[in-house]
């Protein structure tokens, strides 16, 4: 009898102790049971560091109310030798301003020194990658550009139409962030040239682009991009043959800036120039060193942050 009593006492004691130890876990469990957490959509973020992989668009959009000032530079060919300071003397530049209207819609304008080209684009995120629901991000990017070089001298009576200067690009961007360090993207592309040199060529160059990034640290990623043209590969630009665009680069992120350094065979910075009219070849060593600098400014603060600095709590 005494044994039994002691036994029971022990069990009781043990129960109380166990209960007090388990209290906190059961508290959280109780909370989750009584007030279930709202089901949240888990969208994948930061598939790429910037809105461009290297030359072309990535599926990343700017946040709503964010303005991005972009300076892109492509130097001349590295193999031009010392007389041109390995290409540094002949550079093309594009200055651009991009703006995020909503988190799925962004627009941008830019001016590029090659062919004095003005361009504008729109990028729409149609489907965002979502954990357990949507394996890919699907976006559309469309751009139009106008080269503003002096009109060529034509025989008397011939007119050089404004339309001849205009180019359009339509792209579908399909990307997937596989894990923390690997993201890949495929981009079927149509570049429309209002004017081509000869009737041999189609006005539409159809290309398939592939791109990706491998993150090597929190702030550094290695990127690559390739556009394969399915037609118009014999197109000439100023008598020079054209090649598929290949670029490799490094993304370096520092606070509000992203620096992208790259080696590429295209000196052009607009979609039609690098996808359809790259005149240099990796095989011949005609490479260009270049960089993109992106600096973002938050123009419109998100809701709920107005006056938050004065909050006393």
């Amino acid at each position: 009898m005494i044994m039994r009593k002691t036994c029971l006492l022990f069990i009781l004691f043990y129960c109380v102790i166990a209960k007090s130890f388990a209290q906190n876990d059961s508290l959280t469990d109780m909370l989750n049971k009584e007030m279930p957490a709202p089901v949240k959509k888990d969208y994948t973020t930061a598939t790429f560091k910037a809105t461009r992989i290297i030359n072309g668009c990535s599926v990343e959009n700017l946040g709503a109310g964010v303005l991005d000032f972009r300076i892109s530079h492509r130097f001349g060919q590295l193999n031009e030798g010392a007389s041109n300071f390995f290409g540094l003397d002949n550079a093309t530049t594009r200055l651009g301003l991009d703006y995020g209207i909503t988190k799925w819609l962004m627009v941008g304008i830019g001016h590029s020194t090659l062919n004095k080209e003005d361009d504008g684009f729109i990028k729409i995120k149609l489907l965002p990658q979502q954990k357990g629901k949507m394996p890919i991000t699907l976006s559309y990017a469309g751009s139009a550009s106008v080269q503003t070089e002096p009109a060529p001298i034509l025989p008397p009576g011939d007119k050089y139409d404004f339309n001849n200067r205009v180019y359009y690009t339509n792209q579908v961007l399909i990307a997937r962030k596989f894990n923390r360090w690997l993201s890949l993207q495929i981009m079927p592309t149509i570049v429309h040239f209002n004017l081509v040199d000869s009737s041999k060529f189609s006005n539409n160059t159809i290309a398939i682009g592939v791109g990706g990034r491998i993150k090597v640290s929190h702030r550094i990623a290695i990127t690559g991009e390739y556009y394969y043209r399915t037609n118009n590969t014999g197109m000439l630009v100023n008598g020079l043959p054209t090649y598929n665009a290949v670029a490799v680069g490094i993304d370096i992120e520092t606070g509000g800036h992203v620096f992208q350094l790259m080696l590429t065979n295209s000196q052009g910075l607009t979609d039609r120039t690098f996808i359809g009219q790259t005149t240099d070849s990796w095989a011949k060593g005609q490479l260009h060193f270049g960089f993109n600098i992106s600096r973002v400014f938050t123009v419109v603060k998100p809701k709920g942050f107005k006056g938050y600095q004065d909050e006393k709590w």
Partner: protein
Amino acid sequence: MKKLFLITCFLTTGITALFAQKYMTRTGKVKFDATAPSSPERIVGVNNEAACILDSKSGDVASQMLIKSFKFEKELMEEHFNENYMESDKLPKADFKGKITNASEINFAKDGAYTAKVEGKLTIHGVTNDVTTPADVTVRGHTVSVKTKFVVKLIDYKIKVPSLVADKLSKEATVTLDCDLTQK
């Protein structure tokens, strides 16, 4: 004798259940400020979806929140916070499990303002540390509001501040919590 024990057992459990009052919320506000003194921009994150629960009998408290629910003034800050500092895809939650050590001094049945001493374990970025902080507890009917403020050292939670951003991002963050818990 056996019967008596069993009855006592049941009674104890029953009484505990009767007096155990739980207060909880899913919309607790948690803010942190990790702005360095020299920084031109404020580095502040706000989470309005913190879950908190309080057991008025035992004084046990627990809180849990998703790292991804922290919002920032600048979108890029939010991205860096999740990607580079908190690694929220790997470590999605922060939580606190602790106790009000002077729970007996707080009368949850009577309206009034009290100062609670809270002790417990805070887990951020997969690292757990002990935290002790005073908290303002205000009882108003069936609502208990809890306010507290404490400082965490980022290095204690294995959050590294690269020298590049040391002029903006402080090595310490001031964490404020403000929740209104309702009785269940």
